[in-house]
Structures are given as structure tokens and as C-alpha cells.
């Protein structure tokens, strides 16, 4: 199988066990990307009326077929679970599906470690962080890093493993204290902030997931692939929207500021002609 690694890692925090589940190619072709796998798992493995902080709530980290390859805009990770922020479509008070999308290098490193998806279930009886490497999952005590922010905790984990290349997805004090809109951070600054996935991670007493892997991602036709990726890149870099975003930032702040519709009224950016 090319692109996908073909494995799903299930971690049970309650019993401190893990299991690698190989998946068929047809499954991947059906769901394609991280959001697809995650939605499938969250749909089938949650019960009706389940609370988001229930230990059985599956916290899924998924990434797609192109994640970790040369394809532009591919290195994203989706985190899904039943969300403490949303309600179901019928307007009842039951918690509904939530997913958030984050950048950073966690997703690609997850693919290099050999997994397309990591599912965390259960609740640890003490504060824990997880290290995933070369087919092994190691559970470690998180008493030292509990309460630290993204930068300090990541550096501490990297120092403990003697490996600056390890990628860490973690929660900060908000997630530890079950703030319902807490976010998950990775590689210092990339954040998955929507639908309160940090709260779900905190409810499992899980401070951080550190991943390290060295497996390559294979491609069916490398030369054609890189030529298509180059052409796509050129198209993106030359599109008027991208040029404007590069100059003005993602939110087009200066034009919004001109229209006085920005929430801040800084005139920090000079107008672009």
C-alpha cells in the first residue's frame, strides 16, 4: 500500500496496554484522510448520550494519505472525539461529534512511526504521558511536567528522551483542569483549538503523546508525483489570494482594518496596493 501506512494504534490508558490494528486498503480508500478515519471511529465507538468526559470516549489522532510527503499543504493532523463543547444536531444536551485540525510536525512523525491513526481510550489512574517509538508504546509518569506550558514541557520531554527530533502533542494547564475549550498543542506553536479536544485529553489524565519514527512513506510514481506537486505549488504561490495573504496575513487584517471591521484597530500593516 502506498501513501498510507496501513496501521491503527489503539492505546488503553486504564490497563496500560496497546494494540496495533492492521487495516485493509479498501478501508483507506473509503475514508481517505484523517477526518474520515476519525469520524468513522467516533461514530461507531460512542454510545448515544455519552458524556464527552466518559473514559470510553475515543480520542483519535488521524492524518491522511499525503501527510508526511512532498505534497503541498498536506502536513495536517485531525483530532476527533465526542466534544465537550458541542451539542447534537437535535439540540439536546448530549455532547456531539467534535474535530479539530492542527498543523505542526506531529502528523508526519506519526506516519513515519508507522501509524495512520492513534486512538486513546480509558482513563489513567495517575498522571501519564506516552512515548511511541518503533512499534512500542511506553507509559511514563507525568508528575514532573504536569502544569507546564507547551514550550517547557516539550523541552523537558525532549531532554528526557535525549532526542530533539521527537514530536510532542500535549495539553497545557487549561486542558489539565478540564476547561471545556482547551486546545491541544504540538511542536511548540501548532494548535488544535476547536471543540475542546484538550479537555478530552485532560480527562484521560494524559499530558502528552511523544512520537518518533523513521519509516519512509512510499509513493507509487515518485517522478510524476513530484512534478504534480511542483506544478501545484507554482499555482498556489502565484494565485492572487495567496499573494495577498503572504503580504497581509491570514486574516487580511489591513483591509479589515480599513473597513473598521477588525476586532483590533491597530493600523499595523501598511495598505498593499
Amino acid at each position, binding site marked *: 500500500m502506498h501513501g498510507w501506512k496501513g496501521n491503527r494504534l489503539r492505546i488503553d490508558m486504564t490497563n496500560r496496554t496497546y494494540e496495533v490494528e492492521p487495516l485493509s486498503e479498501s478501508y483507506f480508500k473509503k475514508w481517505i484522510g484523517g477526518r474520515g478515519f476519525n469520524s468513522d471511529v467516533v461514530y461507531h465507538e460512542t454510545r448515544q448520550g455519552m458524556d464527552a468526559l466518559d473514559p470510553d470516549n475515543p480520542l483519535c489522532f488521524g492524518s491522511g494519505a499525503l501527510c508526511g510527503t*512532498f505534497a503541498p499543504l498536506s502536513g495536517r493532523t485531525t483530532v476527533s472525539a465526542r466534544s465537550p463543547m458541542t451539542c447534537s444536531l437535535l439540540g439536546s444536551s448530549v455532547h456531539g461529534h467534535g474535530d479539530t485540525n492542527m498543523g505542526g510536525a506531529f502528523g508526519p512523525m506519526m506516519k*513515519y512511526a508507522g501509524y495512520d491513526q492513534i486512538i486513546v481510550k480509558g482513563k489513567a489512574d495517575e498522571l501519564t504521558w506516552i512515548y511511541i517509538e518503533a512499534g512500542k508504546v511506553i507509559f511514563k509518569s507525568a508528575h514532573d511536567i504536569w502544569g507546564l506550558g507547551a514550550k517547557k514541557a516539550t523541552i523537558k520531554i525532549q531532554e528526557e528522551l535525549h532526542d530533539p527530533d521527537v514530536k510532542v502533542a500535549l495539553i497545557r494547564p487549561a486542558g489539565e483542569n478540564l476547561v471545556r475549550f482547551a486546545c491541544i498543542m504540538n*511542536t511548540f506553536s501548532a494548535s488544535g483549538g476547536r471543540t475542546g479536544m484538550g479537555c478530552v485529553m485532560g480527562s484521560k489524565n494524559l499530558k502528552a503523546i511523544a512520537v518518533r519514527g523513521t519509516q*519512509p*512513506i*512510499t*509513493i507509487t510514481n515518485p517522478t510524476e508525483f*513530484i512534478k504534480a506537486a511542483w506544478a501545484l505549488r*507554482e499555482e498556489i504561490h502565484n494565485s492572487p489570494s495567496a499573494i495577498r495573504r503572504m503580504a497581509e496575513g491570514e486574516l487580511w487584517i489591513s483591509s479589515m482594518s480599513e473597513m473598521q471591521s477588525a476586532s483590533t484597530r491597530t493600523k499595523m500593516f*501598511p495598505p498593499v496596493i
Partner: protein
Amino acid sequence: MSVKQQKVIVVDSDKCAGCHSCEMACSIKHFGDCSPYHSRIRIQEFRDVNTFIPVMCQACKDAPCTKVCPMNARSRLDTGAIVTLEDRCIGCRACIYACPFGASHVNPETGKTMTCDLCMEDELGPWCVKACTMQQALQFVDSGNAALAKGRDWAKKLKEEYEPPKADETDFSFSFSVK
């Protein structure tokens, strides 16, 4: 005496944004798959201070790797690149220990070392340079012009310092000072 012009890849680490595209392109070129561990250029990340430094073989004029290799497997091509001859290399990793940059890497498939060969047989030029379209931190230039871009950048900075930009018509009275 004529100076032989050879092409070199010049790295400007100030411009590197750490996107790892060059690693992916190198890996696809030489191995046909995507993995940073199959790449001959590696980006050393210092994400806590947002600094990224691409490290690759500089093809030094007086290269230590060519001297320490017990099998004389590190040899210079006509193009200026220094490569490991796979039939001679015994995988002792002496070139890794001797390299002042840490730019020599072990090929995970053969156990022998690998460094940048400048993709010379390819008419596109080095793929890492082609991949670095966004930031242009990598440039493929004649060895005589290696310092040209850097000198120009520095001179531009100097010029701006001595000659402040003229007042614009736009009203920036509320603006913060942006340097």
C-alpha cells in the same frame, strides 16, 4: 591561470522557515519515497527560538572526509561534489566523525554514508533548490558568486540604515514602529 567555475548550493539559514520540502525532494530523488531519514540535506530545528538551519555537504575545498577515509572512498567528481563510492565504502562512518558540519549521513538501506551529489545528472538541477521556491533559502550559484546574494542583502540593510525611506502619503500616525 584560469579559475575553474563550479556550481555550489548556498544556504541562507535566515530565510529558512523549516518546511522540510528540501528533505522530501531529496528523498524522492534518491530513494523514491518520502522520509527525512533518506535525505542528504537535513534541517536542524530550534523551534523554541524559531531558528532553522539547513545542513548539507559543503564540498569543502580541503575536505577532512577525503583525508580520514581509510578506503579512499570519498572522492571529488568533476562537478565539485564529493561523493562516497559505494563499492569502496566499508561503512566505518569515519567521514561522519570528521565532518565539521555533521553533513554526512548513513544510508539506512546500505549502511554506507551518503552526502549531497548536487543532482548533477539531472537537467533540473538540485531538487532541493527547486523545492525551496517559497523562501529561496537555497540557491544554486557559481562558486565565484557564492557570497554575492549575502553581500547584496547586507549592503541593502546598510543602505536603509543610512538613507531612511521618504515619508509616505499614507497616514501612519497610529502605527506602531515596525522595524
